[in-house]
């Protein structure tokens, strides 16, 4: 297994993917949060709570959670690239026990996902601090709370990357896999969130669990304001984290178990 991990790490670092992932993480983490911090959430239309309030900080930092499909996409593109460039054959020749290959891949990308999350959260934290400094307001949350929130978003990023790898390993076709990831996070989950009756399962969908983990209910609340219905509820951050990890475990297990019997063509 050590050999497989070393092989997957060597493969990963033979491309520029790690570098670009971290650059993307910095942009995604710092970008949206930074922009909103500088404008000042209270200047948005409709006005949002400012950075001086805990709620305002939560919304601004939580914005980086809206870009969690990015680490998922990185994982998906990386693993489907193995099929697209037909390197999966070379890989399975070197390591015929496919389950272990995919387990190693999931572990390595889990690691990259942690790196992504840490960089993304670091830049989001810096961005919100810079925004507050520019506006001359004190951040509405103690530093420890901010760090804890950022750490939870970082964890979510790592889980999303593992989810992305698993979806890629199952779908194999690059465009199909990217379509599944984007289609789900951009469309399907939001649809499920607003259908009355169905939206009771929302807390247990990946997006709902993420919202619980990151205390980010902005979208659900905004939808609830527009529609005559109660906001889709969320669970506690801990339950959200467990639900999200559960998805990662199930997806990883499927990704390890299903490709075992498939023929390569």
């Amino acid at each position: 297994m050590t050999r497989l991990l070393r092989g997957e790490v060597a493969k990963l670092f033979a491309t520029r993917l790690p570098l670009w992932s971290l650059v993307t993480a910095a942009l995604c983490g710092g970008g949206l949060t930074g922009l909103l911090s500088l404008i000042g959430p209270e200047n948005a239309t409709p006005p949002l709570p400012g950075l001086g309030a805990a709620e305002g900080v939560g919304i601004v930092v939580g914005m980086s959670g809206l870009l969690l499909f990015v680490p998922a996409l990185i994982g998906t593109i990386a693993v489907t690239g193995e099929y697209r460039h037909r390197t999966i054959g070379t890989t399975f020749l070197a390591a015929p026990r496919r389950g272990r290959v995919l387990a190693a891949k999931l572990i390595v990308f889990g690691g990259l996902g942690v790196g992504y999350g840490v960089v993304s959260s670091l830049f989001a934290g810096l961005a919100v601090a810079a925004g507050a400094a520019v506006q001359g307001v004190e951040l509405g949350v103690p530093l420890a709370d901010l760090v804890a929130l950022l750490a939870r978003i970082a964890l979510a990023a790592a889980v999303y990357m593992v989810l992305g790898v698993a979806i890629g390993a199952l779908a194999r076709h690059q465009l199909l896999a990217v379509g599944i990831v984007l289609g789900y996070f951009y469309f399907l989950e939001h649809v499920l969130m607003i259908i009355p009756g169905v939206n009771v399962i929302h807390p247990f969908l990946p997006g709902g669990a993420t919202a619980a983990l990151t205390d980010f209910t902005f979208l659900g609340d905004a939808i609830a304001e527009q529609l005559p219905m109660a906001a889709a509820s969320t669970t506690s951050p801990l339950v959200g984290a467990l639900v999200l990890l559960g998805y990662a475990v199930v997806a990883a297990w499927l990704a390890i178990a299903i490709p075992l019997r498939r023929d390569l063509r």
Partner: protein
Amino acid sequence: MIILTVRTFSLLSNEYATEGIRSMITAQIEVSGLAKRIGDVEAVRDVTFVAAPGRVTGFLGPNGAGKSTTLRILLGLARSDSGTALIGGRRYAELPDPTGTVGAVLDLAGAHPAMTARGHLRAYCALGGHDAGRVEAVAELTGMSEYLDRRVGGFSTGMRQRLSLATALLGDPAALVLDEPSNGLDPAGIVWLRTFLREFAAKGGTVLISSHVLTELQHGIDDLVLIDRGRTTWSGPLDAFTARGTSLEEAFLELTSGVESSPVPTATATPNATEGIRA
């Protein structure tokens, strides 16, 4: 079936030109009664042959005859419905050191265009559990040392084939399996490959090379296995095949068309001498 693998030490092991191929544990390839259905098609119905150590075995048949499917099953990339395909007496997946036993040059085994050749070889060296020094050694063997730091995306087909062969040699294997390796190689490349495979076999290595072009194989092989519509129709030493009294082309067509007496259509009966038979 029990295969005894014999440790043989070649007297030629220190020969300069093939430095890097060590004396090897031999690995015979044995395929027996192999069958596989893909969808509605019986891709492989009854394939049986042996590729022996120290010999280059040509695996010849028209397109769609089942060559690639057979090789994929042999290499554990696809599953058979019945029959066995063994290397040194074991299935590929059961080999303790797969890439150290068999090297494969397959259409299916590609390289990532964003990687340099060195990055690619390092990664698969680590994955196969081989010594990192093998990267330089296989690059030397396949004549691609000066290309090591170029990205694979810019490689010609010929360079890709060399990289594929270099990857196959990382584990210093006892057997080489090559699926249509001459595709995309220029004439000089084909001669180089033929010489390389002969030297590999001379050291006790097993070579199994597939092609749909008869003339491509006839100068470089010791044994011939013919496959047509999923069945092996002939196998044995090339000498015995050519001693049948007919020309190679006629014998090939007779054995792959399955109709011995009926006249062969003119289009395929007069094959282009330089291209060989393309079915």
